[in-house]
């Protein structure tokens, strides 16, 4: 390995990147666009869900309960309706996600101390939101029920002959007290961007040389295969790390997402992760001959696992067993666990060492295999 050769390759790569607009776009603009889209777009929490009310009873009781809904902060009034047809219409148009239906006798039955029900209709086409909404709604209804009982006792001047046990819940969301989705998403974006950068850019850079014939020229030179690969991937490892810092900074400036743990540890994990993804990129470049094929394969092996199988969006705990087993091979999984640990919990290497170990193992074996397998030949 000669320094002069590797530096020449690195320099050449940076000049190419600087002069090729599409590269610049991929490296700097794309990550920021993704951060903004995901950051503003993905919400796992619900706030002010538009709610319509069909109140057939028109009583103080029904108005009371409606008021409790809107006071909760989870729901907001989206108008009164008259009939299921109108509810459906509002749901179809997306004007409402939830509907409360009070039967005619709602107020009078409650007043008489009889059993009655409020119907809660939810737009289930958005599964995530619907589940959360039903949870919040039933909480509100139970609270109202308790209030009614206590109110009735007080009204009748009854004092129970014993102390009533009072159980209240007091929940706190640790690590993410405001339950901000974006706190969860910024680490996820880092994983997605870094796996794309590492794999897609590396694969494209190498297959590009094959396609343009420049590989043939360097293959006929004394440059060794190892020198070629090191000189080719070093720039993209650097760029991937720059991207990581870019996202961390943008996450902080745009979405006020702070890092609780150590930045040095974060950097170390990024380095481990990018060694795995560039290894994948080398593998992709060794099996594809055209840029088109390389792109497709690179996206397939990075984007899908890093978004779908890493726990970025869908919790791994809910996967079927076979898929769950598969995630152990997914470097994104370890990186996202580490990132969330560092970002949100501020934990250190004493907790995250298994993730570090798995990433090192994956990286070393992938890089090792592809470097050894690389041939300085055309076919």
């Amino acid at each position: 390995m000669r320094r002069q050769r590797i530096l020449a390759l690195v320099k050449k790569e940076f000049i190419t990147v600087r002069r090729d607009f599409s590269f610049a776009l991929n490296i700097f603009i794309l990550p920021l666009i993704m951060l903004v889209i995901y950051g503003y777009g993905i919400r796992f929490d619900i706030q002010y869900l538009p709610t319509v009310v069909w109140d057939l009873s028109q009583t103080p009781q029904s108005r009371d309960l409606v008021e409790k809904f809107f006071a909760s902060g989870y729901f907001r009034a989206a108008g009164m309706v008259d009939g299921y047809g109108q509810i459906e219409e509002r749901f179809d148009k997306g004007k409402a996600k939830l509907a409360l239906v009070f039967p005619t006798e709602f107020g009078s039955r409650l007043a008489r101390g009889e059993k009655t029900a409020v119907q809660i209709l939810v737009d289930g086409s958005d599964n995530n939101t619907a589940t959360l909404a039903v949870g919040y709604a039933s909480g509100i209804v139970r609270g109202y029920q308790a209030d009614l009982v206590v109110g009735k006792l007080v009204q009748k001047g009854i004092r129970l002959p014993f102390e009533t046990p009072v159980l209240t819940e007091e929940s706190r969301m640790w690590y993410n007290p405001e339950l901000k989705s974006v706190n969860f998403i910024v680490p996820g974006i880092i994983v997605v961007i870094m796996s794309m950068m590492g794999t897609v850019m590396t694969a494209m850079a190498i297959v590009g040389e094959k396609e343009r014939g420049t590989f043939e020229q360097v293959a006929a030179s004394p440059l060794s295969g190892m020198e070629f690969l090191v000189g080719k991937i070093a720039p993209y490892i650097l760029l991937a790390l720059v991207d990581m810092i870019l996202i961390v900074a943008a996450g902080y400036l745009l979405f006020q997402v702070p890092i609780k743990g150590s930045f040095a540890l974060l950097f170390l994990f990024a380095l481990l992760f990018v060694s795995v993804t560039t290894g994948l990129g080398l593998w992709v470049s060794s099996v594809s001959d055209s840029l088109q094929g390389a792109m497709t394969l690179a996206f397939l092996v990075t984007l899908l696992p890093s978004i779908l199988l890493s726990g970025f969006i869908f919790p791994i705990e809910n996967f079927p067993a076979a898929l769950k087993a598969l995630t152990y091979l997914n470097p994104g999984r370890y990186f996202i666990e580490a990132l969330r640990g560092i970002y949100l919990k501020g934990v250190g290497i004493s907790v995250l060492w298994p993730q570090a170990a798995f990433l090192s193992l994956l990286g070393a074996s992938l890089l090792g295999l592809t470097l050894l397998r690389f041939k300085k030949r055309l076919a």
Partner: protein
Amino acid sequence: MPSAIVLKGLVKEFSGIRAVDGLSFSVERGEIFGLVGPDGAGKTTTIRMLVGVLLPTSGTAEVAGFDVVRQPEEIKKRIGYMSQKFSLYGELSVQENLDFFADIYLVSGREKEARQKRLLHFSKLGPFVGRQARHLSGGMKQKLGLSCALIHTPEILFLDEPTTGVDPVSRRELWEIVYDLLEENVTIFVSTPYMDEAERCSRVAFIHKGKILALDDPKQLKTTSGREVFEVKVKNPRQWRESLEGLPGLLEVEIFGDKLHLSFPKGGMEETALKELLARPGGAVESIRKIVPSLEDLFISLVKGQPSGG
């Protein structure tokens, strides 16, 4: 001193098809050797095996005394190679490309400066050092490619169709650079589809469908071609061509402007006899003279003489 290049039964198959079919010849030090043939003859495949980027299916080859399969890295230190397709980095400027290849070949310091200066001088690329390679003309691209292949002063230079797609002026300039190299005792192995360029070589090998049809000094090839060619000047060569069919011993008739080229086997026709045969009533033969057959005449006749196998 051993030969610069030695091929022994070199074969390359691509999924069962023989692109190169048992080539055996050697190239001496300091000569300019031409591999001449049409597209698809196997020229590029042969050169790729010789420069060590493609493994032969069978047979052996030595370049600068080293085996192409076992010691490709030794070969790569000693050769320069310019592939058929423009294969420099388009986004890099002329100077940056020269710097890149100097670094790859570990040329540095004063030596690098001196060589670059010289290469820029004789390629006349000096005024364009800052221009990105992708924005150069075809001829300038080739000259830059040649300069990059020469940055480490190789012993043997491989040029794969260096003048394809290059204008006549640049083509001449390229050949001048090549001749300068010959004076420095660099061995040159060049492939070309053009017969006029074959004449510039000290020896040529005609290659067709992966096989050698003939190999010799171009002058020798023409005299030993086993045929005689007469140039006949007539008024309307097209009409004449048809009426000549059936002339005793005639191998071929080709039209060149207002002249016809008539080929006969060696000793198969005398100038005086031909004059008599062509002296017909109403026929206006303006002149007849015996000429040296061109390499193109020869190549065509060699190809036609091949057993047709698809």
